[in-house]
């Protein structure tokens, strides 16, 4: 007798629906699985048979064939166990097969019949919703994560027996119970208060220039490079960058959570990522860990930092080859990893924030304290390619903190909340300006369209022209100055770019190699 149920597996950060078919016929007693399966899926046969027996159901000595369709997609993971078991049970007539129509079944089985949690629930449930399934049967530990997708019933089960009851419809009340509050229905996973970051810009004393630069960087999604001796607060500032980003919208939150779901970092306590990520990989990170990789590609740090900040502390210590890998994802805002069995695409819409010392002792250009030879200083900077430096729109010095800054006292530092409201205004202006185009941020304005988007006051234009000639700027530097000046003007709500904005942007222009080549 033939029966089928539905399941799914994760491919990249998207899910693919799979039909699990089972057929039981007379013949030599055996359990055959077909459908281009990986070893982990093939092992399911033993888990499923044992779990069914341990749930009190006898499997008759017949020929059982299980097929996972479509047969041309290579299938990975242990998430098919429960679906395979239920398809076999349906074929045996233990559960009514028609009840399993329009139901997506995910879960790994233990030998005792327990349903274990799996990764990638969120993208699977979202895909199920898209395909018009009515409900999902998930491991109990994953059910909160599944519910965050919204608009589809998710039922959690702990054992195979419970799953059978659910399919048979004996556990209907559970279905209703899971979608109780109004709030939960409107925005599942949002009902807990937005978790605070526990950090605030007001904690940082002094460093006014760097804080200002950080504000502009976030408002226009410009990449930021901070240069200064150790202990000047570069890391502290970087950690606080997410606190001044606009809050994540529900769509953004779901997109981000999908990535975390795939790597298995969502839990019942935190079924939805509501915070901008801040990822600070150690400088020994490999290219695969940074950009994503592995035999079956897993998202890397740049994807885990999606919609947030990727912080590269001690930039010069990173392997140059690893840093070069960043260039393409920074440009395309996604990373593409190719394998024989297919191409995986992970989003990486990130702001890169990097910090470095000016030389190995940290005091350059203060020649009285710097103990490096000129060759050491040059070698230090040579570790970073010009191509990467070119992608850093804003570059500031983080000078040594003075005692007066530390005591602060009379001056009140701007809080994250205040900065964030200014940033959000600039973001709103950008949204209106770029409505209907592919551009999202000022940092993404193509060179050719700069004159349209960046009108300048006459005086500002003159100043920029003079600066360009006098400081011998490159065309690329000119473009970046305009983009940064655009953001500075947006922060003030100004339509036209003024001299103030130009001169500020010139101040933040990217690092010039000449500073090291003397």
């Amino acid at each position, binding site marked *: 007798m033939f029966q089928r149920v539905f399941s799914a597996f994760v491919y990249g950060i998207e899910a693919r629906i799979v039909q699990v078919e089972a057929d039981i016929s007379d013949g030599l007693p055996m359990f055959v699985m077909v459908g281009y399966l990986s070893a982990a899926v093939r092992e399911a046969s033993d888990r499923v048979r044992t779990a069914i027996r341990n749930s009190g159901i006898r499997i008759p000595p017949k020929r059982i064939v299980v097929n996972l369709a479509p047969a041309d997609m290579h299938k990975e993971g242990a998430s098919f166990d429960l679906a395979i078991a239920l398809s076999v049970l349906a074929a045996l007539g233990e559960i009514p097969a028609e009840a399993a129509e329009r139901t997506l079944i995910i879960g790994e089985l233990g030998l005792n019949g327990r349903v274990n949690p799996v990764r990638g629930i969120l993208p699977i449930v979202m895909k199920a919703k898209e395909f018009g399934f009515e409900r999902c049967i998930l491991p109990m530990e994953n059910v909160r994560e599944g519910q965050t997708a919204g608009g589809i019933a998710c039922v959690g089960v702990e054992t195979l027996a419970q799953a059978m009851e659910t399919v048979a419809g004996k556990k209907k009340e559970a279905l209703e119970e899971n979608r109780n509050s109004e709030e939960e229905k409107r925005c599942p996973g949002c009902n807990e208060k937005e978790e605070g970051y526990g950090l605030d810009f007001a904690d940082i004393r002094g460093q006014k220039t760097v804080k200002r630069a950080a504000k502009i960087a976030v408002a226009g999604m410009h990449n930021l490079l901070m240069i200064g001796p150790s202990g000047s607060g570069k890391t502290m500032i970087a950690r606080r960058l997410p606190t001044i980003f606009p809050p994540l919208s529900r769509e953004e939150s779901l997109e981000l959570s999908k990535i975390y779901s795939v790597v298995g970092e969502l839990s019942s306590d935190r079924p939805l990522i509501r915070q901008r990520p801040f990822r600070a990989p150690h400088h020994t990170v490999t290219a695969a860990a940074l950009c994503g990789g592995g035999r079956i590609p897993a998202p890397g740090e740049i994807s885990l930092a999606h919609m947030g900040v990727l912080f590269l502390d001690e930039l010069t210590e990173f392997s140059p080859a690893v840093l070069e890998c960043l260039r393409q994802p920074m440009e395309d805002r996604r990373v593409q990893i190719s394998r024989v069995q297919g191409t995986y695409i992970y989003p990486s819409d990130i702001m890169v924030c990097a910090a470095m010392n000016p030389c190995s002792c940290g005091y350059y250009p203060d020649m009285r304290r710097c103990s490096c030879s000129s060759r050491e200083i040059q070698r230090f900077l040579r570790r970073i390619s010009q191509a990467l430096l070119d992608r850093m729109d804003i570059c500031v010095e983080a000078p040594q903190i003075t005692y007066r800054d530390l005591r602060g006292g009379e001056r009140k530092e701007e809080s994250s909340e205040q900065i964030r409201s200014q940033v959000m205004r600039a973001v709103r202006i950008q949204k209106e300006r770029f409505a209907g185009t592919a551009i999202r941020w000022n940092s993404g304005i193509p060179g050719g369209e700069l004159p349209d988007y960046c009108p300048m006051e006459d005086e500002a234009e003159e100043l920029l022209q003079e600066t360009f000639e006098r400081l011998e700027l490159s065309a690329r530097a000119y473009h970046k100055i305009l983009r940064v000046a655009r953001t500075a003007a947006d922060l003030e709500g100004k339509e036209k770019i003024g001299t103030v904005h130009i*001169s500020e942007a010139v101040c933040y222009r990217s690092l010039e190699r000449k500073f090291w080549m003397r």
Partner: protein
Amino acid sequence: MGEEKLLWKNWMASLYEIPGPKRERIIQAAGSIRNVYNMKKQHIDRMDMLTGREKEILLSARSAGPQGSYERLMESGAALVTVLDEDYPQALREITNRPFGLYYTGQLPGERRCAAVVGARVCSEYGRRYAYLIGKHLAEAGIGIISGMARGVDAQAQEGALDQGGYTCAVLGGGTDICYPPGSRNLYERLRNHGGIVSEYPPGTKAASWHFPARNRLISGLAQTVIVVEARQKSGSLITADFALEQGKDIYAVPGRLCDPLSEGCNRLISQGAGIVAGIGWLLRELGADALEKINKSKKRENLLAKNENLLYSCVDLEPRSLDELTELSGLPREEVTEILLRLQLRGLLVEVSKNGYVRMLSEGK
């Protein structure tokens, strides 16, 4: 001594490990370089003035023959002048341990009056700027600049002279066909075309650390005056100053603050009796050149600046100050500070020497 062929002169000049005066004595004893080449081994072994190692060098050079080094000289395009020649620099004839041969590309200083400008490689902005100005103004007064093409003070002084269109020549610690330091390619090419590059080492010789002290004796030797701009307590520039003392040249040092390790060497020289550079105009007069009458030019500028510009300008010093410091010191709002900084930069009054580190541009005449 009769006329020697270039082939033989080059062969002798390439034996740089034997002190120049000794080579001259060997030639004198043998009559000509060719005779030295054909000398019997027993004769060489019997020469008491040569050490064992020097005898070995001579013997191995004899078996190698003169042709190889001659071909290298031709390939490199460098010229050779030896003590045997008329146009060997007069100034060098007078020093002890004068080099036997001098390889050069471009021009030799010739009869012109020269000053050596030397100093630290890792120098402060103050040192860089003064080295440049000294190079420039001395060149303007027709004095040639001799230096070592090292980064920092040396390179700045030579750039200054080249910018002014004056003569400058670099003495290298390796062959003249090798640009050392490799990062100074641009300066090297300018010197080849508009100045001179000199070395006692044959073409193809790599710069080695023990060549540099010997090289320094030529820097002071080619000049009549040695000016030290910035030097630490232990510095190659002080070796040059020692040679200058030995050779009886005038020594001047640019003074610095007492607390500044980069000026310790200079201040020490002054305490030992070196001349103090009390201004560039002063230095020119001291050297007997005409002081140029444009020293009072800087006075007028301050009137041209607006009030706040003047305020901020007064906060900028010779050591780099950061944006935050300048905002704090001037008490002006941030937006205004960035704008004034840019405008002052455009007028050439300030220069950004490191990321957001600004220093005052020293005016030309002072």
